[in-house]
């Protein structure tokens, strides 16, 4: 790209500029300003993939830098030989087995996985156990929660009857349900699933109900003028209008069920990542606990992103 020189600029000021003082013409702007009106050469086009890579790098670099900095501070603070808390390097050396062999005792297939029932199981095995519990409990909470939310959002009677109960029950901490859950189900697996269900369902119900209640009057009027029948109203107006609220509740719910499962497994024992933490604490393996915390954080983050992504996709196509 050629940059136009200042002599070829259009307009009389550029031409008469030099002779201005003698002719007594008042210039609208000084000569040097005109001279500066040239264009910088356009940069060579960047390949779209390269541009994408640069954007990703620009996004990720601050996070990476922060992680490195925090690890360095942590190492510095805990490097004394008598430090009570292990340093990152100690975590690496002492929990080396846990970090590099997470899938020990796990048989992964394309469509299935099985975890060794006894013996030494890697951290990923425990995570998968916990995830399968969350998946069942949260799945049930999502279905029942959306249905109940639509019911109390749509029916004033149901709202008056049920909303106060829900408002009270939702404040009960997940672990407080554990004795009841154990008393009902007697076994670890179903009572853990029930705990997830009862933890995740409240935000799903209440957000879905709020979504149904705040469907704009304009959309309701359109439905009335078009004389949509209840099924058409449900599929064409209510569901699409409620999807954003619904997924807000589903996102809060999945985060809460991940919180609850770890706590439940710590108390209950046996398998799962909560048990792994409790076990490592009892064996005085604090470095294993730290590795488990990183896993839990990353998995929880991934769950949240998956639900958010599902919400975006469904919101676009609904």
């Amino acid at each position, binding site marked *: 790209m050629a940059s136009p020189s200042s002599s070829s600029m259009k307009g009389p000021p550029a031409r008469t500029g030099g002779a201005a003082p003698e002719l007594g013409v008042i210039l609208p702007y000084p000569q040097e300003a005109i001279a500066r009106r040239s264009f910088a050469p356009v940069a060579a086009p960047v390949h779209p993939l390269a541009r994408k890579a640069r954007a990703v790098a620009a996004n990720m670099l601050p996070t990476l830098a922060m992680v490195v900095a925090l690890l360095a501070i942590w190492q510095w603070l805990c490097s004394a030989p008598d430090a009570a808390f292990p340093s990152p390097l100690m975590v690496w050396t002492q929990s080396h087995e846990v970090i590099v062999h997470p899938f020990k005792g796990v048989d992964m297939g394309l469509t299935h996985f099985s975890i060794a029932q006894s013996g030494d199981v890697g951290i990923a095995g425990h995570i998968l156990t916990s995830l399968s519990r969350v998946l069942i409990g949260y799945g049930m909470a999502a279905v029942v929660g959306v249905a109940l939310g639509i019911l109390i959002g749509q029916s004033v009677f149901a709202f008056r009857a049920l909303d106060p109960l829900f408002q009270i029950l939702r404040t009960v901490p997940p672990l407080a349900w554990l004795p009841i859950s154990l008393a009902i189900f007697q076994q670890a697996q179903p009572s853990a699933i029930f705990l997830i269900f009862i933890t995740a369902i409240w935000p799903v119900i209440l957000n879905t109900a709020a979504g149904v209640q705040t469907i704009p009057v*304009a*959309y309701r*009027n*359109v439905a*009335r*003028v*078009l*004389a*949509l029948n209840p099924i058409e109203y449900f599929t*064409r*107006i209510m569901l*699409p*209008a409620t999807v954003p609220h619904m997924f807000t509740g589903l996102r809060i719910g999945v985060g809460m069920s991940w919180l609850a499962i770890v706590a439940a497994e710590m108390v209950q024992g046996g398998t799962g990542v909560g048990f792994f933490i409790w076990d490592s604490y009892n064996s005085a393996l604090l470095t294993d606990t730290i590795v488990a915390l990183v896993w839990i954080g990353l998995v929880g983050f991934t769950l949240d992103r998956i639900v958010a992504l599902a919400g975006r996709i469904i*919101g676009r196509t*609904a």
Partner: protein
Amino acid sequence: MKHRSYLALEGVTVEFPTRAGPFCALDRIDLSIEKGQFVALIGHSGCGKSTLLNAVAGLVRPSRGVIFLDGDVVDAPGPDRAVVFQDHSLLPWLTVEENVRLAVDKTAGGKSRAERREWVMHNLDLVQMGHAAAKRPGELSGGMKQRVGIARAIAMNPRVLLMDEPFGALDALTRAALQDVVMDLQARLNNTVLMITHDVDEAVLLADRVVMMTNGPAARIGEDRTVDLARPRNRLEAIDQPDYAGARSAVIHFLHERYRNPATLAA
């Protein structure tokens, strides 16, 4: 037996319950509209124009009185009384075509899929929006959205077309363009139309009759002025006609002399 007009409101009173007792929005409204007539309803904000239109649409139930449309009593909303809403009320998750299609599917019983699709596109073309069929309302300007709102309403082949301040939220130039669209549609389709507006020129330019409402509460019809301008109308020809000026002046006198805006009276 007394002759009853195509659309007839007989003694329509609308009251809303409030904490301080019933609030009377409309008081014994009698209004007769013949088939193919374009009636503009004008009045200050809060005078009950929208309530009257919603009563005809069936969205509001009259406390007393009856509304007849072609001999049938109006008692519920229905697609035979299509509404163009002020805020267009397009469903944002559907494309332009799907929005119109939803209305067509409810009204075009017995037509094949291809015929329905063709009918949707025909109506979008009538408002010059055929090019945007695949877009979503969020990608359109306000004027374009309202064109689609009009297409959705006329695609329902309504017995009466109700327009609730359809251009109230648009700028003056867009508004004029849409008025031209409505004039064009009226010349082609000769719908029975009841339109709310608070723009005097819009009322006189578009309507065969301008019905002026007194200030609420308990609003009534104050004056009913016929606009004798030949159809099809043209903006530039119309404004030079003596009856245009006459009707315009009558409406302005009504609104700003006899029934001044209650908000400015207080000041």
